[in-house]
């Protein structure tokens, strides 16, 4: 298939404003009479609030208003379960809970005033371990609930007990992962403007999901959705992170803006951001696998416990993705999987790129290497004996029959590009000196888009202006990944015009069609189809208009290279501009709403059987490392990443996703951990919470594999999250080969590699079994 705009390395449509500093991010906006908001956070991870006295603070020069939970019309919100407090009412449940928010004429006044707010607490004992929270007699984190369980998901397939009796080799292992911070470089920023353009309140800022933010703010204010308008700005990274924390900030700012009748701007410092914003879930994972001596898997039993922290947030859906994908892409006749989420008084956990997959992929891919060792087989052989192919049946009983199951292809390509087979043999030989090398692989399958979590549909508006320039608006928001560029390419492709004609508008919830959120690596697939649908409607309008006038068949007309041609004789009928002029004269409407609803899916919550996702992507990453066994230092030398994306709409932005995902996975694998001791967060800025710099960057070889999917626009599927879920286990497997020791706990920091246990909180000598 030949394309003119898609499948090409088109330059980003937002590049110019970003290289010149003209791009406006949330904190860059200023409004007349604007006040600055600042939140006072809790002093304890768990405490009763006896009294809040704001009198002194109110007298501080420049202070205009202070709000507490009493001032919030509806203090609870949440996307799935509405139990997150906008401001703590009777109890603080985690260290980042807000107590009060000040609005003042200057940032300094707001910062000084919060210090004058007097809060009387009664400190309460907290629960900081989800396994403690799970105990029957555990105190309740949310007193209105019967227990501390947020959710429990199951997958039941075959008879696991019986299957284990038939297994010739059985392995039982436990793996754990850590709290991780998104580390978007732009801290959260929100501005609430009252009574602007017929809306009660307009919210600007770094908002990942404008519609979920609108739901939260309208709910908190107890007003209809059409009174709250959210306009997204350029966003300095999100990775799943600017959702509930931003909704909470937006709600606080909105209440203050309405109370003062002035715009209120709130911008977090990095410390506030790390203290307040939700993290990636730490998991404890127990895996039991049974296999024949020949290496055929016969059964798997899995139990995963996720720490949800103080609130439910996205835990119900995060753990759901985990339950669907927990076995990895391996054929198994018998599976029993349970995933749980529990409330604790730790910082709450939510969406972060990968969304419940990086944890289980770390466990399952470490396990496969351990099993291969046990069976005296190479990791590659064991995987090839068990991976999914076309028509395989997943643990959920789904037959993979509607797309190309390309695991073998991605593995073959990654193996070749990394020289895996030779290097694996070489590094298995004894290595001289302190520095030892290893090579490791990880593979995965990943359901595209939301799956059975929620209704899955998206919309877009394509509007041709009088002069032939084009506006696009969709309900999905650019998060920095290149969505505006990809959507513009799709519209240009369908209309046969140059992408320069197109201007992609920021999401405005009062104009753009509600499309769910830019999450779950769904935007190209869902939103791309919606843009395509809108552009196709306009194309039909144009061809019918011309057919009518020139007495040709509309089906014979094609739009390409800025012109309309008769495809039978390749003759140009008119230019695109002339067609727009004609439409103007005839009064033909050249705008359209596009809509795309994902194919049907199903899920039985009791058995975990059904069709949880309508299609999947497949990936394989291979890591080559060098470990200094004298210091514990890991250097990742090379990462090869082969991903089947269906179709690359833009190979350059796509590779950006691969590079970025790999570096984030590298951080997850060997350096990042939000250190939490009894609910207190110890590392609250980038001097202590270390993320990879360019000096940590290995050689990265991205391999794009294209097996077009019948459902995707031009066959395109997903890339954002798959790139992140494989790196840590691939590195862990490489480190195990290099050192001969298996580390089952992330991150693989210096102490764990050198001493076998972590020196920071949570690490024990039992880290290595």
């Amino acid at each position, binding site marked *: 298939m030949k394309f003119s705009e898609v499948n090409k*390395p088109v*330059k*980003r449509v*937002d*590049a*110019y*404003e*970003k*290289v*010149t*500093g*003209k*791009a*406006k*991010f949330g*904190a*860059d906006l*200023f409004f007349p009479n604007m006040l600055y908001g600042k939140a006072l956070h809790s002093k304890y991870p768990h405490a009763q609030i006896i009294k809040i006295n704001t009198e002194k603070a109110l007298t501080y020069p420049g202070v205009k208003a202070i709000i507490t939970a009493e001032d919030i019309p509806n203090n609870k919100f949440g996307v799935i379960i509405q139990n997150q407090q906008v401001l703590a009412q009777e109890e603080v449940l985690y260290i980042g809970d807000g107590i009060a928010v000040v609005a003042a004429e200057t*940032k300094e006044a707001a910062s000084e005033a919060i210090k004058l707010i007097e809060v009387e607490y009664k400190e309460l004992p907290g629960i900081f371990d989800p396994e403690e929270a799970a105990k029957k007699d555990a105190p309740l984190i949310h007193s209105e609930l019967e227990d501390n369980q947020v959710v429990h998901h199951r997958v039941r397939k075959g008879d696991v007990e019986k299957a284990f009796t038939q297994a010739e080799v059985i392995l039982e292992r436990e793996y754990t992962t850590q709290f991780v911070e*998104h*580390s*978007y*470089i*732009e*801290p959260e920023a929100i501005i609430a403007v009252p009574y602007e353009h017929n809306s009660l309140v307009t919210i600007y800022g770094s908002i990942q999901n404008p519609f979920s933010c609108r739901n939260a703010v309208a709910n908190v204010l107890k007003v209809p959705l059409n009174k709250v308008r959210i306009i997204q700005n*350029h*966003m*300095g*990274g*999100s*990775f799943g992170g600017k959702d509930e924390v931003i909704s909470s900030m937006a709600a606080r700012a909105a209440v203050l803006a309405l109370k003062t009748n002035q715009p209120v701007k709130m*911008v977090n*410092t*990095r*410390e506030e951001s790390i203290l307040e914003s939700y993290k990636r879930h730490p998991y404890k994972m127990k895996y039991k696998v049974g296999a024949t001596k020949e290496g055929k898997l016969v059964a798997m039993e899995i139990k995963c416990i996720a720490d949800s922290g103080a609130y439910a947030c996205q835990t119900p859906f995060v753990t759901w993705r985990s339950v669907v994908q927990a076995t990895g892409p391996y054929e198994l006749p018998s599976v029993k999987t349970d995933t749980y989420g529990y409330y604790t008084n730790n910082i709450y956990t939510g969406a972060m790129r990968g969304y419940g997959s990086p944890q289980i992929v770390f466990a399952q891919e470490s396990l496969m290497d351990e099993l291969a060792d046990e069976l005296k087989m190479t990791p590659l052989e064991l995987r090839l004996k068990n991976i999914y192919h076309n028509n395989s049946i997943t643990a959920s009983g789904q037959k993979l029959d509607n797309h190309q199951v390309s695991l073998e292809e991605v593995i073959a390509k990654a193996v070749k590009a990394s020289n895996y087979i030779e290097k694996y043999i070489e590094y298995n030989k004894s290595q001289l000196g302190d520095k030892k090398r290893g090579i490791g692989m990880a593979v995965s399958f990943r359901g595209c888009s939301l799956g059975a979590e929620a209704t899955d549909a998206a919309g877009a508006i394509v509007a041709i202006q009088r002069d032939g320039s084009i506006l696009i608006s969709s309900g999905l928001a650019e*998060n*920095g*990944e*290149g969505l505006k560029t990809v959507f513009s390419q799709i519209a240009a492709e369908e209309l046969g015009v140059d992408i320069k004609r197109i201007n992609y508008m920021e999401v405005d919830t009062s104009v753009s069609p509600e499309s769910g959120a830019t999450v779950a690596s769904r935007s190209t697939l869902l939103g791309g189809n919606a843009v395509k649908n809108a552009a196709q409607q306009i194309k039909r309008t144009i061809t019918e208009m011309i057919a009518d006038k020139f007495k040709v068949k509309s089906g014979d007309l094609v739009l390409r290279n800025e012109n309309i041609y008769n495809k039978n004789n390749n003759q140009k009928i008119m230019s695109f501009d002339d067609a727009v002029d004609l439409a103007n004269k005839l009064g033909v409407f050249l705008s359209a709403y596009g809509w795309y609803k994902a194919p049907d899916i199903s899920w039985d919550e009791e058995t975990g059987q059904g069709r949880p996702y309508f299609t999947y992507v497949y990936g394989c990453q291979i890591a080559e490392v060098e470990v200094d066994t004298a210091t514990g230092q890991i250097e990742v030398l090379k990462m090869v990443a082969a991903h089947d994306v269906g179709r690359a709409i833009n190979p*350059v*932005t796509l*590779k*950006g996703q*691969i*590079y*970025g*995902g*790999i*570096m*984030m996975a590298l951080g997850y694998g060997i350096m990042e951990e939000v250190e939490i001791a009894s609910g207190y967060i110890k590392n609250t*800025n*980038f*001097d202590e919470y270390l*993320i990879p*710099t*360019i*000096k940590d*960057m290995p050689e*990265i070889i991205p391999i794009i594999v294209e097996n077009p999917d019948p459902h995707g626009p031009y066959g395109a599927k997903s890339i954002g999250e798959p790139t992140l879920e494989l790196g840590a286990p691939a590195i862990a497997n490489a480190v195990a080969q290099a050192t001969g020791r298996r580390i089952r706990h992330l991150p693989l920091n210096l102490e764990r590699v050198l001493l076998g246990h972590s020196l920071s909180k949570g690490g024990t000598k039992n880290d290595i079994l």
Partner: protein
Amino acid sequence: MTKLIIELTINGKKKKVETTPSTRLLDLIRDDLHLTGTKEGCGKGECGACTVIMNGELVASCLVLAPQADGAVITTIEGVGDDKGLDPVQEAFIESGAIQCGFCTPGMILAAKKMLEENLHPTEEEIKRGISGNLCRCTGYQKIFDAIRLAADRLSSRDGGRGEEDA
């Protein structure tokens, strides 16, 4: 609070600004001069988002107090490139696809520009060192690296055609 007036040349323009002894240069640039291309990411000199060039040196403007900038010559991202066009580093960032969310981009471009002003033939290690103080969470750095390499190649070939590869 004590007020004082400082004078500085920013992006080629002389400015007199009223400020306080404790105001950070970053806040003066963003809040008083409304040059919001300079970003705040950490407030601790760790992330490089607030990078500007002051008196020929790269500085984290969150760590400089406004009075320290009295009499200084400062370049922010708004001063890179001109009416005629973009700076070669900016162009290379666009062409290499080195931009994703764009929040680190101004600091990255200034750091890259400064490095290339001093060394038109940076090695791989020198490029990495040149932007090792700038964090990026989106790109994985690879395309930023590629962009700097591209800009270096172009600038060095303009610079009398020496342009030898020394990566």
